[in-house]
C-alpha cells in the first residue's frame, strides 16, 4: 500500500514504520519560538530545569521576532531581552531579531527549511512551510520546552486529504480567492486534524508566494499541515538556499501514486471570482461583488499569508490602474513579510509610489494580526485585510474585518468601499 507525504515524513523522522492514528515520537529538525511565546518558553524551561538545562542542540533552535518588531511596549521589550540573553547563554546563533521580518518566511529565505523537515514554532501558521514540503506545526510553549530536552516530540499520524486544483485564474483573481473559496466550502473544521496534499496544474505552475498563501490557510480549517513538494522554479529557488539535499528529499518523500487518502476534492479556478471572508469568521465567505459597496475605513496588505513580493506587486498593479490614487480618508497600510521582500519593493520603485499615494509602507512584521500593533481598529470601524483571521474584535474590540486578496484589498483602498478589483483592472 502506498504512502502519503506525511506518512513518509513521519516514517523518516520517527525511524519506524507507522500507521494512521498512531502516536509516535519524531525527531525535531528545528524548534523555534517568536517574541510571542518565546519568553514563556524560556521561563518555563528555566523553571523545570532549575536553570541548569541545556537545549539538546543549539544549532536546531531558532528565535524570530515578528509580533512586535521593533517592540513598542515595555512588556514585549522585556520578553525580547529574555530571549536574547537565553540564546547567548545557550549558544543559540539563529536569532532573527526585530529587523528581519515574519519568522517562517525568514527561516525559509535563510535556507533553514527543507522538504521533510519537522519544525515546531509558537505560531499557528508555522505550517505554511508545507509550501516547500516541510512538516511544520504551530504549538504552545510546553511543546517547545519539551522538544528542547532531547529534540523529540509526540504526534498523531494524521489522515491525508488530497486537493486537486486545475485551470487558470482570470485577471483580478488569484490563489487567495481560491483559498477563501475552499475555506467557505469546507468550513472552520473542514480539514480537522488532517494533513492535506495539493496537486493539479494550477499548483504545479504556482509561485512560492502562492503556495505559501494556500498552505497558510490550512490552519483556518483546523488542518495539521498543507503539503506541496517543490517543483520547477520553486525547487530551483529552494536548492539555491537550502542546498542539494533538497533534491534527494523531494525524491524520497513525494507521495506514492497509490497512496491512500481519506478524502479527495477537485477544484477548477477558470471561472473563480474574487472572494472575501466577511465579518466575523474566515468561513463566512461571499463573492466580493455580493458585498461590493460596503464601507471600509482601513485596508491592510501583508501578513504571513499575503506579504510576499508577488502579493505586493499584485496590489501595486491595481493602484497603478487607478492612477496611483486612493480614496480620501482611507487609511491604507502595506507591510512586507521580510526585509528581503522590502528590498525587492524598494528596487522595483513601489515604495516611492505607495508613499506618494498616501499609503503607509511599514517595516517587515506580522503587523495587523493582533490588536497590539499599529493600525488597531476602534469600535465600529471596518477593516479589510489580507491576514488570515477576522474573528470578532481580533484587531480591536467592536471592530470588524473583511479578509481578501491583495488585489481586492487595494481596489477597496482605491474606492473606499469593498470593490471587485476587476472594476479597476478592467
Amino acid at each position, binding site marked *: 500500500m502506498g504512502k502519503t507525504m506525511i506518512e513518509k515524513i513521519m516514517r523518516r523522522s520517527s525511524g519506524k514504520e507507522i500507521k494512521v492514528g498512531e502516536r509516535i515520537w519524531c525527531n525535531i529538525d528545528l524548534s523555534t519560538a517568536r517574541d510571542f*511565546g518565546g519568553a514563556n518558553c524560556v521561563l518555563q524551561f528555566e523553571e523545570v530545569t532549575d536553570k541548569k538545562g541545556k537545549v539538546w542542540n543549539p544549532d536546531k533552535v531558532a528565535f524570530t521576532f515578528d509580533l512586535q518588531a521593533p517592540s513598542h511596549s515595555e512588556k514585549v521589550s522585556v520578553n525580547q531581552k529574555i530571549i536574547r540573553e537565553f540564546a547567548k547563554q545557550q549558544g543559540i546563533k539563529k536569532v532573527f531579531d526585530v529587523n528581519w521580518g515574519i519568522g517562517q518566511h525568514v527561516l525559509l529565505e535563510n535556507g533553514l527549511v527543507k522538504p521533510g523537515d519537522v519544525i515546531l514554532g509558537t505560531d499557528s501558521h508555522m505550517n505554511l512551510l508545507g509550501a516547500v514540503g516541510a512538516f511544520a506545526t504551530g504549538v504552545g510553549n510546553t511543546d517547545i520546552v519539551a522538544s528542547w530536552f532531547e529534540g523529540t516530540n509526540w504526534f498523531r499520524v494524521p489522515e491525508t486529504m488530497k486537493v486537486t486544483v486545475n485551470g487558470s485564474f482570470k485577471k483580478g483573481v488569484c490563489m487567495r480567492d481560491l483559498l477563501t473559496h475552499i475555506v467557505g466550502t469546507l468550513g472552520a473544521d473542514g480539514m480537522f486534524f488532517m494533513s492535506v496534499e495539493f496537486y493539479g496544474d494550477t499548483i504545479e505552475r504556482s509561485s512560492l508566494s502562492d503556495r505559501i498563501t494556500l498552505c497558510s490557510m490550512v490552519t483556518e480549517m483546523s488542518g495539521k499541515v498543507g503539503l506541496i513538494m517543490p517543483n520547477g522554479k520553486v525547487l530551483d529557488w529552494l536548492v539555491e538556499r537550502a542546498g542539494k539535499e533538497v533534491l534527494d528529499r523531494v525524491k524520497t518523500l513525494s507521495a506514492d501514486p497509490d497512496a491512500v487518502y481519506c478524502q479527495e476534492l477537485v477544484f477548477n479556478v477558470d471561472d473563480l471570482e474574487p472572494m472575501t471572508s466577511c465579518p466575523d469568521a474566515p468561513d463566512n465567505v461571499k463573492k466580493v461583488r455580493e458585498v461590493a459597496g460596503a464601507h471600509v475605513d482601513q485596508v491592510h496588505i501583508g501578513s504571513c499569508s499575503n506579504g510576499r513580493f508577488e502579493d505586493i506587486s499584485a496590489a501595486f498593479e491595481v493602484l497603478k490602474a487607478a492612477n496611483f490614487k486612493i480614496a480620501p480618508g482611507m487609511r491604507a497600510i502595506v507591510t512586507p513579510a521580510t526585509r528581503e521582500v522590502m528590498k525587492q519593493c524598494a528596487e522595483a520603485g513601489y515604495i516611492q509610489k505607495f508613499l506618494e499615494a498616501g499609503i503607509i509602507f511599514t517595516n517587515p512584521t506580522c503587523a495587523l494580526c493582533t490588536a497590539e500593533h499599529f493600525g488597531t481598529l476602534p469600535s465600529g470601524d471596518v477593516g479589510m485585510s489580507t491576514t488570515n483571521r477576522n474573528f470578532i474584535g481580533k484587531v480591536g474590540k467592536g471592530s470588524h474585518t473583511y479578509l481578501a486578496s491583495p488585489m481586492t484589498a487595494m481596489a477597496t483602498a482605491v474606492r473606499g468601499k469593498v470593490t471587485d478589483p476587476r472594476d479597476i483592472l478592467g
Partner: protein
Amino acid sequence: MDKTILRGRAWVFNDDVDTDLIYHNKYLAETDPKNMPKYSFEYFPGKENFAKEVKEGDFVVAGTNFGCGSSREHAVYCLKYAGVPVILAESFSRIYYRNAINNGYPVLFVKGLSQAIKDGKIKDGDELEVNLLKGEIKDVTNGNTFHGDAVADLEKDIMKAGGLIEYLKEKAEEKKK
C-alpha cells in the same frame, strides 16, 4: 468527597470558539500563567463578565472545534488557573487539544453537545454533575444526561503523569534505572 464526581455551574459556548475569544491577543505578552485568568473571555460578546463571575469548579461547555486559531497556551492556562476543572466540548481544535494534554488539563469529548447547546438542552448557569471516571455528565437543572469520552492512547499516559514535561522526566528517570 469523591473527587471523580464534580459539581458546578455551566458556562455554555457555541461552535468554533477561537483563542482570541478565550484569551485575546492584546494580553499575549503575559508570561505568568497565574495572571492569565483575569482576561478569560473578555472579548466574547455576552461573556465579558466570565473572569469576574467564574467560581472554582464551574465548567466550560462548548460545541465543536473549541480553541481554534492561535497556538497560545495562555488560552489553556487562563481556564485552568481560573479553577475550571475540565472542559466539556463536542470536539477540540488540534493545538488547543495538545496544549491541554501537555498541561495535564482534562478535556472530555462529549457526543451531541453541539446540537444540545443549539437546542437549549444545556444552558448557562445549569448545575452539572460530572463523573470523570464514567464520562457521565448530568444536567441536574433539567435532567438531561450526556456521555463524554476521556482521552486515550499516549495522551492518557501524559495526563496520568500530570503533563508532557512530567511525562518526559518520568521517562528519563526510568532510563537511568
